[in-house]
């Protein structure tokens, strides 16, 4: 390989987990470095490219003017941009707070002053076109690895198209919705996480956002209702990670 692809990792407003998750690839990082050189990634290099990126990974929501500027910069300078993690793809928890920014500032700080130029938190996909969206809070690092190697080899990464239930059953986990009556959003949530929460005996919290296409939240709502959960609880659960759809 003569020339490596230039990779930039950009972090907007988020908990930092999604950027860190890349470093948790550990030895697999060296496989990525066979094809990529990291030009910008504040957790891994002091370089700050400012040039052209073949692939840009963007994590977090656009929550401030600085985020928006950074996102536009990343988009304008990159060939292939991946919205990485649920903040970037669906807005996640930050995006779920419904009041307009001025009212939120007032509720929290007592006045409407906005020295940080805060904006209503919205996912990356609301502002720029993305080439690939990989949700998850955090996303599955193996999925990011597959996508990056695919791109390096000239293959368009394949989007997941199935709900959490599929991997849950493939792993033979006991169904927590049917057998324990736990509020599980698995049937309407995009899979790819290998049903991590159900493995621990918990219901799916929907962190990967709704299954694209003809998803059926109405029926899920009726099911949870029949198990004794009230309206407000169910609606809040639905909206926690995905008020904004890609």
């Amino acid at each position, binding site marked *: 390989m003569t020339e490596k692809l230039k990779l930039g990792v950009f972090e907007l407003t988020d908990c930092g987990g999604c950027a860190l998750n890349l470093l948790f690839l550990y030895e697999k990082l060296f496989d990525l470095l066979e094809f990529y050189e990291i030009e910008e990634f504040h957790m891994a290099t002091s370089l700050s490219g400012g040039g052209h990126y073949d692939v840009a990974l963007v994590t977090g929501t656009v929550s401030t003017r600085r985020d928006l500027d950074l996102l536009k910069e990343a988009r304008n300078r990159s060939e292939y941009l991946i919205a990485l993690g649920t903040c970037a793809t669906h807005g996640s928890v930050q995006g779920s707070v419904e009041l307009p920014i001025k009212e939120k500032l007032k509720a929290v700080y007592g006045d409407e002053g906005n020295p940080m130029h805060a904006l209503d938190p919205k996912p990356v996909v609301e502002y720029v076109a993305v080439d690939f969206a990989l949700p998850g809070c955090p996303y599955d690092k193996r999925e990011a690895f*597959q996508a990056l190697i695919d791109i390096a080899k000239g293959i368009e990464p394949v989007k997941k198209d199935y709900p959490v239930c599929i991997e849950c059953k493939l792993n033979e986990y006991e169904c927590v919705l049917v057998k324990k009556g736990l509020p599980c959003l698995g049937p309407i949530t995009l899979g790819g996480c290998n049903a991590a929460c159900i493995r621990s005996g918990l219901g799916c919290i929907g962190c990967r956002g709704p299954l694209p296409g003809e998803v059926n939240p109405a029926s899920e709502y009726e099911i949870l209702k029949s198990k004794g959960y009230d309206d407000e609880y169910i609606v809040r659960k639905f909206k926690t990670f995905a008020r904004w759809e890609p």
Partner: protein
Amino acid sequence: MRYVKLPSENFGEFFNFLQRLGPTYGPVKEGKTHHFREVKGVSEMDLNYTRTMLPPKKFFVRPRERLFRLENGWWKEEDGERPFVLFGVHACDIHGLKILDKVYLSDPVDPYYSKRRQNAFIVGISCMPDEYCFCKSLGTHFAMDGFDLFLHELPDGWLVRIGSVRGHEVAWENEKLFEEVTDEDLRHFKEFEEKRANAFQKEIPQEGLADMLDLAYNSPVWKDYAEKCLACGNCNMVCPTCRCYEVCDSWVDAYSSVRERRYDSCFMESHGLVAGGHNFRPTRLDRFRHRYYCKSYFDPSSGFNCVGCGRWDEFCPAGIEHVKVLEEVRGSLR
């Protein structure tokens, strides 16, 4: 068919012998569900189970499996198939395997399935139906073949039917563990079967099912249920006769990759998608209805691809019941 009796006191020794044939898998209770797991002793199993979550299909078409690996430009088969024992399989699941045989063993033969089928020693076991079972009305409540040995519960042991040459060999090798069947044993066997036959709470009138579906394609009942259906694919995953799989390649490291396959579901939007962008079943309604036609219409030669195991009803999050849907569809024609 040869019948012998396995007295209760010899059951443990018989099981120990089977373990010498290879790793033995039996029904194990975990939480509120049963699964086929590797077992080392009789006490680990719960032989009074009604159904496992995944059917024994999982030993022949694995939920997920690596087919081969690409390394240095060469494909390498993932091998390591060995003989194994499947203990405590119910009649409906044996029928399920026979239906899969028609798919995977007819030309072109699936080499993975075929190897595992030859490696398996299958011991069937009698059962009592629960509220979900409807195998009797489909004629899949009793297996005449498709097993090596089949154990029927008696008050003081097991009546064993021998269903294959290998089954005979095992019986001969362990002649001292078995006794001749007495008239009393046969009476007990008949009593058990009668009690069982009367215990079914659900049935699907198979008569005219295909004709009925022929007429009912546009029944409003499909639409009502498609609105309830989550299209989550749980029913496909637990079905003993669903046979669709997805094949994916994934990277192991920078220069090697594996080809894997996993169960696929006809409830996924991409299932009916073909090259050029056409989708045979673009809506949830299409996909919901399709499943019933796949199970009860397309292939009468395979006993209609449904064995009445009740897994769908037990594991559907939306509580959709197979028999009830078909009954309502039939009703909508009147």
